[in-house]
Each structure stands twice: as structure tokens, then as C-alpha cells.
């Protein structure tokens, strides 16, 4: 804990509770998503309006993606996959609103990766049976057990750090860029207002937040689907 660096700030809550801004931003995002979902689905019509068409398209897209990736029989995963996709997309784009993306915190990404890890193994055991599941660790032959074990343990780590690293990398670069542009503004133009920070960061935001952010949320979701459905085969 300190005042330097790029870690999440600590926020004081009533009753002396302390959480990081990761959690408060997550709460805002949750509230926003839930409010939008509630508004969009509270009055469903047979002949849909514009709002309903958007919501139906999103849900249908998620359902179709789940069906294509995990198979028709695993359509029950669609709500979680959809939640993951929507939450990650909004969380990764939070940087555009000047918020610290919750995914720029290892606690968030590891939380999601641990849920995926738990899903991989619980659904693996449930569909294969415990015997076949354990046997899977000794294949193709028993000496590979440690490697298989490491591979399984590496999954949540690689999942969480891939997402975290991409987002926090973007965050750091953007922070440095804003700092540098502010510095240039005062050094070259002798202004206290960072005028150079107008416009230039937009290009970097498009790459780090829009492109990288959406791509990473897609990758995380796809990998979750692939890992879980592979564990169930």
C-alpha cells in the first residue's frame, strides 16, 4: 500500500469499510447493466420496438455463440457467458469514461478466472464421472500427471494475467501519455493547462480501450467456453 504507482485507489465506505476503486467501479457497472437490462426487458412485445430489437439481437448473438462453441446441449451456459461478455466489454471500456477499469486489477480477473476454473472442474466431474475425470490427469500415460496438473493450474493464471496485463498495460501507457502530454504543454508552451492532451490520446484510447479491450473480453469469454466444453467432452 502506498501513494505511488498504478494500483487501485482505496475508497472509504461507511462503517469503516475499505474497498478499492475496482470494487466501486464494478458496482457502478453492475448497476448500469442491470438498469439497462431492466429497462429493456420490462415490456416485451410480440412486435419488438427498437430497444427490444437491440436486446434480442444481443441475447440471440450470445445464445448462438454459445451453441456454436459449446454445442447445442450446453446452451444452459449462455447466461453466464453473456454476463461475462457484457461485464468484460463494459469494464474494459470504463477507461473511456475516465474510470479505472475493474479488469486492471488482478483481483477481478482472477475472480473471473477462478469461476472459470471451478466451472471447468465441477462440470468436468459432473459429466465424465469422478473416475474418468481423475484418469484424465494420467493420460496419455501416468508419468505426465505433474504436467497435466500444472497445465490445469496454469489455466486460471494465464486467463487472469492475460486480461489483467493487457488492460493494466494500456492503463499505464495512457497514464504516462497523459503525464507526458501535460509535461510537454507546460515545457514547450509554458501552459499549466495540458492542451496537448486534447485529441492526441484519442488514437491511443481507440487502440488500448476499444480494440484491445473488446478483443480481450472476447478472448476471455471464448477461452472460458472452450475450456469448459472441452472438460465436458
Amino acid at each position, binding site marked *: *500500500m*502506498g*501513494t*505511488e*504507482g*498504478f*494500483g*487501485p*485507489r*482505496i*475508497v*472509504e465506505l461507511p462503517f469503516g469499510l*475499505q*474497498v*478499492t476503486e*475496482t*470494487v466501486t467501479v*464494478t*458496482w457502478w457497472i*453492475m448497476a448500469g*447493466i*442491470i438498469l439497462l*437490462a*431492466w429497462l*429493456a*426487458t420490462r415490456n*416485451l412485445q*410480440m412486435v419488438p420496438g427498437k430497444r427490444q430489437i437491440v*436486446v*434480442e439481437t444481443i*441475447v*440471440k448473438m*450470445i*445464445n448462438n455463440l454459445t451453441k456454436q462453441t459449446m454445442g447445442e446441449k450446453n446452451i444452459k451456459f*449462455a*447466461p*453466464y457467458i*453473456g*454476463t*461475462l461478455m*457484457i*461485464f468484460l466489454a463494459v469494464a474494459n471500456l470504463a477507461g473511456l469514461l475516465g474510470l479505472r477499469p*475493474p479488469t486492471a*486489477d*488482478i*483481483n*477481478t480477473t*482472477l*475472480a*473471473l478466472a*477462478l*469461476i472459470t476454473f471451478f466451472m471447468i472442474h465441477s462440470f468436468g466431474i459432473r459429466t465424465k464421472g469422478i473416475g474418468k475425470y481423475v484418469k484424465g490427469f494420467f493420460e496419455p500415460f501416468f508419468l505426465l500427471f505433474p504436467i497435466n496438473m500444472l497445465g490445469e493450474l496454469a489455466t486460471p493464471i494465464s486467463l487472469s494475467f492475460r486480461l*489483467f496485463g493487457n488492460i*493494466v498495460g494500456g492503463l499505464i501507457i495512457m497514464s504516462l501519455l497523459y503525464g507526458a502530454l501535460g509535461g510537454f504543454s507546460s515545457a514547450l508552451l509554458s501552459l499549466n493547462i495540458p492542451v496537448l492532451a486534447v485529441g492526441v490520446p484519442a488514437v491511443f484510447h481507440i487502440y488500448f480501450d476499444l480494440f484491445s479491450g473488446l478483443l480481450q473480453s472476447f478472448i476471455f469469454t471464448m477461452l472460458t467456453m472452450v475450456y469448459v466444453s472441452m472438460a465436458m467432452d
Partner: protein
Amino acid sequence: MNVYVLASELRMGLVAIDWMLAVQIANTLILFLVLRKILFKPVTAFMEKRENEVKSQFDAAALKKKEADQLIPEYSHKIRNAEDEGKEIVRSAVQRADKRTAEILKEAEHKATEIKESTQKEIEQEKVKAINTLKNDIADMAILAASKVIHKDIDGDQHKVLIDQFIQEVGDTAWHN
């Protein structure tokens, strides 16, 4: 920890795993449960419902079309029958009209013949009447002429029979010439 630093300026380490991990797991699960309840389940169920409804409507339409297709031969048969019937009606009407025409013509002809015959008879009668009148006149004139010749009254009644007989003979030959 520096006591002068506000809580909002305090930062966690960049890669520090702490109990926020549990909070974030809980947050994710809450978001998942809420979205499943208010977004994914109702919207998916609703789309399925609509899909089924559309399907059932298409099925109903297909059924109706099938029924209609089955009715086509029946109705075309009916139409053909009606056409035939119409033709038959027209044909019989024409036939009846022809018959009636023939009848009327025949009747007219018959009537014309009748009229002609009766007229001829009348003419004949008139002719006989005229001849008789003429004969009487001639007889009278003959008696008158004869009485002038012999200067003596011929007794009309006495000689009439004789004269009539004469005239009858003469007249007959005269009329036949």
C-alpha cells in the same frame, strides 16, 4: 502508512491479491444471477415463444393452403357443371323457341289457308249470287223485250219458268265460254 494522505490517495499495489478477490467473485455471481433472471431467461423464453407462435401460424397457413388446394378440383368441377348446365339451359331454350316458332308458323299458315279458303268460298257464293241476280235481270229484260216484240204482255208468272230454263241453258254455255 502516511497519516497525511487521504484515503482516496492511497493505492493498493499493482499486483496485490487481497480480499477484494472474494468481493469480485461475489459481484460477478450476483451480476450473473440478476442478468439471468431479468435478461437472458425472459428474453430467450420470449423469443422461443414468438418463434413457436410464428411456426404455428405458418403451419396453420400451410394447412389452410392444403385445404384450399384440395377444394380446387371440387370447385372447378362445380364450375364445369354450372357451365354445362348453363349450356343445357340455353340449348333447351333455343330448342323450345325453335319449336314454338315452327308451331306459330304452322298455325299462321293454317290460318292463312283457312282465310283463303273461306274467302274463296265467299267469292264463290258472291259469284253465284251475282250470276243468279244477273240471270234474274236478264230474264226480266228478256220478258220485257219479248213483250215489246209481240206487243203483248207475257204473263211473267206463267212464262217465267220457261224463260228461266232458257236462260239457264244459255247462261251456262255463255259463262262457260
